[in-house]
């Protein structure tokens, strides 16, 4: 009975492929959900003419987690933990998006220290995410050593996140109104060490790939897309910037104080797999610049808002203030209420535009949370990119789009 669920009916399959496949001229190949280079549980139904892809139909949903539904059953603060697990390479970026949406909905201000820390950690997450991408992308193209190098640096970042929040990946460190707690001792030194170390390491990766003829042969001219096509199909992030369009929400629509930082939006011109690689490499350098600036200007002051209607009081107040006890009790049992209304907050995640659509109904739980996840939108471009290429190139194209299946299916 269980097996029957995963198969498509013949009629459904007929609608997806061309007449040539039904006549037996072309071959239908199922790729995934368990495949080493689909970056998770993506399933592709390929129609092949020899080794050339005629048709590519993605079948997603194998990691559908019901996150949006589950968030509706939790209070605003508790729903935060779900966002980490959506795009699991960019947990802090998801937290940021959700927190900004909640803060917009309830009109809550965030102190400057928290804003700068948020920018700093989000950029470190961006680097960590690009490192995973680089490692697995190279691994898909059979360059094993890059994987080993990038994960070495990623561990340094994981240690920094663990230092702040006590968790390596699912940090939930940003909360509506600020941060969970203040930065720990030794944080600044750890980040400074990373900043000193990392530029050389990027050079190291570039030495391995950028001018490597094997790598260039596998990626240049593969999966080309133009800016107009990319916008039509909803492609954003580094994939869009590789087509030559300098669209980055951190610049065009700054949030969380990004307008105070000096950085560039790297672009390339061809829109192929190689350019997407170039853009991401440069993005890591720019992120590092932002981290450096954030570390220098890290202001002193409170790390979360003192609006007691939304943010719990510090532990020290509980001993002597009845009001603090009441607020604490209220926030941890019932949670805070948000007004009736809907907000839409888009931010720039490592993969593109991440948008949070949040509807409040006056109660302590969101009525509807929707995430416009970049991977979902980007993956839609895959059939367009894959058409006419070889199966071996498809592997490069999938990884260059950088889909995270948790982000696709939610």
């Amino acid at each position, binding site marked *: 009975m269980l097996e*029957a*669920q*995963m198969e*498509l*009916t013949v009629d*459904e399959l007929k*609608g997806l492929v061309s007449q040539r496949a039904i006549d037996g001229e072309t071959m239908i190949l199922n790729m995934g959900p368990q495949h080493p280079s689909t970056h998770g549980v993506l399933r592709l139904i390929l129609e092949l003419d020899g080794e050339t892809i005629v048709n590519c139909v993605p079948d*997603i*949903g194998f990691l*559908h987690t*019901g996150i*949006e*539904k*589950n968030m*509706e*059953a939790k209070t605003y603060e508790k729903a935060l933990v779900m966002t980490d697990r959506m795009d699991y390479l960019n947990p802090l970026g998801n937290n940021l998006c959700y927190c900004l949406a909640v803060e*917009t*909905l309830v*009109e809550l201000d965030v102190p400057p220290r928290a804003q700068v820390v948020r920018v700093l950690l989000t950029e470190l997450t961006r680097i960590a995410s690009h490192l995973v991408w680089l490692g697995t992308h190279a691994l898909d193209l059979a360059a094993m050593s890059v994987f080993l190098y990038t994960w070495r640096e990623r561990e340094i970042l994981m240690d920094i996140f663990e230092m702040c929040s006590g968790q390596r990946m699912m940090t939930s460190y940003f909360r509506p109104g600020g941060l969970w707690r203040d930065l720990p001792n030794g944080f600044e030194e750890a980040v400074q060490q990373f900043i000193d170390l990392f530029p050389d390491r990027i050079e190291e990766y570039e030495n391995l790939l950028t001018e490597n003829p094997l790598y260039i042969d596998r990626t240049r001219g593969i999966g080309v897309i133009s800016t107009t096509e990319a*916008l*039509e*199909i*909803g492609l*954003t992030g580094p994939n869009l910037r590789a087509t030559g*369009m300098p*669209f980055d929400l951190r610049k*065009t*629509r700054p949030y969380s104080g990004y307008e105070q930082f000096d950085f560039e939006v790297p672009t390339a011109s061809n829109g192929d797999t190689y350019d997407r690689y170039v853009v991401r490499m440069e993005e890591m350098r720019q992120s590092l610049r932002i981290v450096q600036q954030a570390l220098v200007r890290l202001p002193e002051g409170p790390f979360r808002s003192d609006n007691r209607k939304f943010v719990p009081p510090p532990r020290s107040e509980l001993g002597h203030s009845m009001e603090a006890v009441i607020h604490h009790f209220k926030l941890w049992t019932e949670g805070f209420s948000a007004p009736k*209304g*809907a*907000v*839409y907050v*888009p931010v720039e995640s490592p993969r593109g*535009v991440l*948008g949070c*659509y949040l*509807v409040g109904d006056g109660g302590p739980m969101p*009525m*509807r949370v*929707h995430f*416009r996840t970049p991977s*979902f*939108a980007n993956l*839609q471009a895959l059939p367009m990119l894959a058409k006419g290429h070889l199966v071996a190139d498809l592997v490069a194209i999938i990884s260059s789009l950088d889909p995270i299946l948790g982000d696709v*299916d939610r």
Partner: protein
Amino acid sequence: MSGAKAFLAELRQELEDRVLDSFEFRDQFTAVLQPDAIADACEFLRQRDFDLLIALTAADHWPEEPRFEMVYQLYSTHLDVLIGLSVFLDGDEPKIPSIETIYPNANWHEREVFDMFGIDFPGSSDLRRIIMPHDWEGHPLRRDYPLGYEEVQFSFNYDEIDKRKKYAKD
């Protein structure tokens, strides 16, 4: 921000009384449209440089009627203007014209809404379930669909639940 306001005024002029309402909430501008006006509104904004359909989703206001609210967020990458369009749909046989011909990326988003809310999109080229298994019953994100959680085992009720838990065999 004022840009969005100007566009909404233009939209109101173009579509006249098919724009039912327009409002501002937290610096974000939204127009409420009649269901048959959505394609025209998208076409109109598309020609005015709104080149990216950022989001297409729905919300369920059950048990209120009209029950479903379709939400479109259009963004202009050149002007940096975000406009929301929203359309209210009835609870029984909700349907709204597809905007796939105007914004091709609406396809997957519409499939997702179809899958999760059961809203029909006449004119869509490929309306199948996208996320749930194809033989799934019901539409999970509707408010009257149960969350479907399982009882949690604690030490006091561990044995009792363990007895009826279906463990797999070899």
